[in-house]
């Protein structure tokens, strides 16, 4: 299946600053693709180039098979853009209906289609009751919901979203994530998601790319990234009190066990062959009279992956 978003050596500079540095990436149809990176890494520039708002200096990209430079207007008609919350892009003196109708008309939707779609989306976003109020009177969360509604009004094939759940309350954020999942899995739409909300990205993204200094530092499914970044997996054993403490030394000598630590009744260790090692460890403990309460793997989160790749650079405020 060809990529619906495809980039080859995409480069964009501003004077001497290389904002996007020879990026090559592909996003499949129906995928939620997370695009992560610290501030100033090149995320927004990449999105602007892909949305045909900025021209690349080098390389090329296509959206749904359309060249972003040669077929800019077509590209803009198949994408939806939800900009970062502070650039909500809503006309504040106009009502939600007027905002949505204006954009819908630009996508050549018929009056009937527009009426139905506006009603459907405002209902979905829980904004129908405020349909005739000026957007300027809306709370931050309501504006964000309306921005989302505006981005999807024409049912775009590819949605570019920058921090979509910022400003949404937890319940709204959850239902939005569910909506995104439905959009991609049932309607085969594609989402290109920029976010600093790593747990959220971990939850909903099929694949992620981490960009730093304009270059792709890593790309893949989070499980693949974990494997490539950490060869060894970390496990924690919790024992019931009263076990023989000398067991720790014996366990550390088993096969590929490394960095074994004992703290009160908790044993932590690393291994690259858990299938072989873990049964042995359990067996030794039981043989020595110890009783195991839990054995669990310490999962590396997307935040761990991100911090390992980006390091301390992104920490400055």
């Amino acid at each position, binding site marked *: 299946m060809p990529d619906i978003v495809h980039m080859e050596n995409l480069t964009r500079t501003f004077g001497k600053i290389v904002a996007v540095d020879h990026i090559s990436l592909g996003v499949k149809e129906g995928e939620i693709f997370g695009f992560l990176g610290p501030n100033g890494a090149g995320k927004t520039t990449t999105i602007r180039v892909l949305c045909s*708002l900025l021209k690349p200096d080098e390389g090329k990209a296509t959206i749904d098979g359309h060249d972003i430079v040669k077929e800019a207007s077509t590209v*803009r008609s198949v*994408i939806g*853009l939800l900009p970062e919350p502070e650039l909500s*892009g809503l006309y504040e*003196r106009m009502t939600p209906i007027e905002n949505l109708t204006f*954009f819908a008309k*630009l996508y050549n939707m018929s009056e009937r289609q527009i009426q139905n779609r506006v009603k459907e989306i405002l209902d979905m976003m829980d904004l129908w009751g405020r349909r005739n109020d000026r957007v300027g009177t809306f709370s931050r969360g309501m504006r964000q919901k309306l921005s989302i509604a505006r981005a999807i009004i024409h049912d775009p094939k590819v949605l570019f979203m920058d921090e979509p759940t910022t400003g949404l309350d937890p319940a709204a954020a959850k239902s939005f994530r569910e909506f995104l999942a439905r959009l991609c899995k049932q309607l085969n739409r594609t989402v290109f998601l920029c976010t600093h909300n790593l747990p959220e990205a971990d939850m909903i993204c099929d694949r992620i790319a981490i960009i730093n200094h304009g270059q792709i530092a890593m790309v893949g499914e989070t499980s693949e990234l974990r494997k490539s970044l950490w060869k060894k997996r970390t496990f924690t054993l919790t024992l019931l009190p009263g076990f023989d403490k000398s067991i720790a030394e014996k366990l550390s000598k088993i096969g590929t066990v490394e960095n074994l630590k004992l703290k009160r009744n908790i044993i932590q260790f690393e291994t690259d062959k858990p299938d072989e090692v873990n049964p042995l460890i359990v067996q030794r403990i039981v043989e020595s009279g110890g009783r195991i309460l839990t054995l669990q793997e310490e999962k590396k989160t997307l935040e761990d992956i991100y911090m390992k790749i980006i390091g301390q650079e992104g920490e400055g405020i």
Partner: protein
Amino acid sequence: MLHRAMILARKELRDVFRSRMIKINFILPAVIFGVVFPIVILFIGGLVSSAPTGGSEFPFPIPPDFFPDVTNPNQRMYLVLVYTICTIFVLILATFLPIYIAADSFAGERERKTIQQLLSSPLTDSEILLGKILAAFIPTIVTTYAVTLSITVFINLAWLNAFHEFRIIFPNLVALIQMLLLYPELVFFTILTMCWISTRVNKVMEATQFGSVVIFPVLLLIFASFVGLPVLTVNFAILVAALFALVDYGLFKLASRRFSREALLTKI
């Protein structure tokens, strides 16, 4: 292209006319020029009709073919006053009315952070530019013609009132040429200039401050009348209209060529 440009223009009109500032900027001059000024004309008519001497002492020459059949000096004075003042005032109105809307066109979108969303729509560069121009052009030209109509009625009423003679003295051919050609051309000139300025600044206020340059052509016309150029003649009116058509065409070509989505997002 026109269809989508009109969608944008309609959105612009709905949006900008909800701004109190723009409403005041539009309604106040329209009321002053369309209502207060005609009442002043009525008053002038009364004053001129009872003046003791004729109107041959104007600081600028009156062309011989300007109402040659009107020989009464008071009537001539009224005609010259009315035509000179009306021409200048309506031209000033046509120049100033669209300034704020056109200044708001791009700088306003930037200021309110809506520009990226507009540019990411399928609208082409030409459609965006045309939509913005139409949004300022339509209300300005409608208001200018409404004010001109009001002035026309009052001028003719004032003539009837002052000289007890029913005669359509306004507009003559020169005024018609100005109405049909020069007014729209001047409005277009102002809008293009202001839109161009608006693409290059961040705030609407900055754009309006730079916008005072648009009064330059009107000042030139006033200056021309005072140095003795025959501004009230048909030939001069056609010449000026042709000149403005050329300038507008050149400006539009330049604006279309220089219009850049990228610059709107990245510069400043």
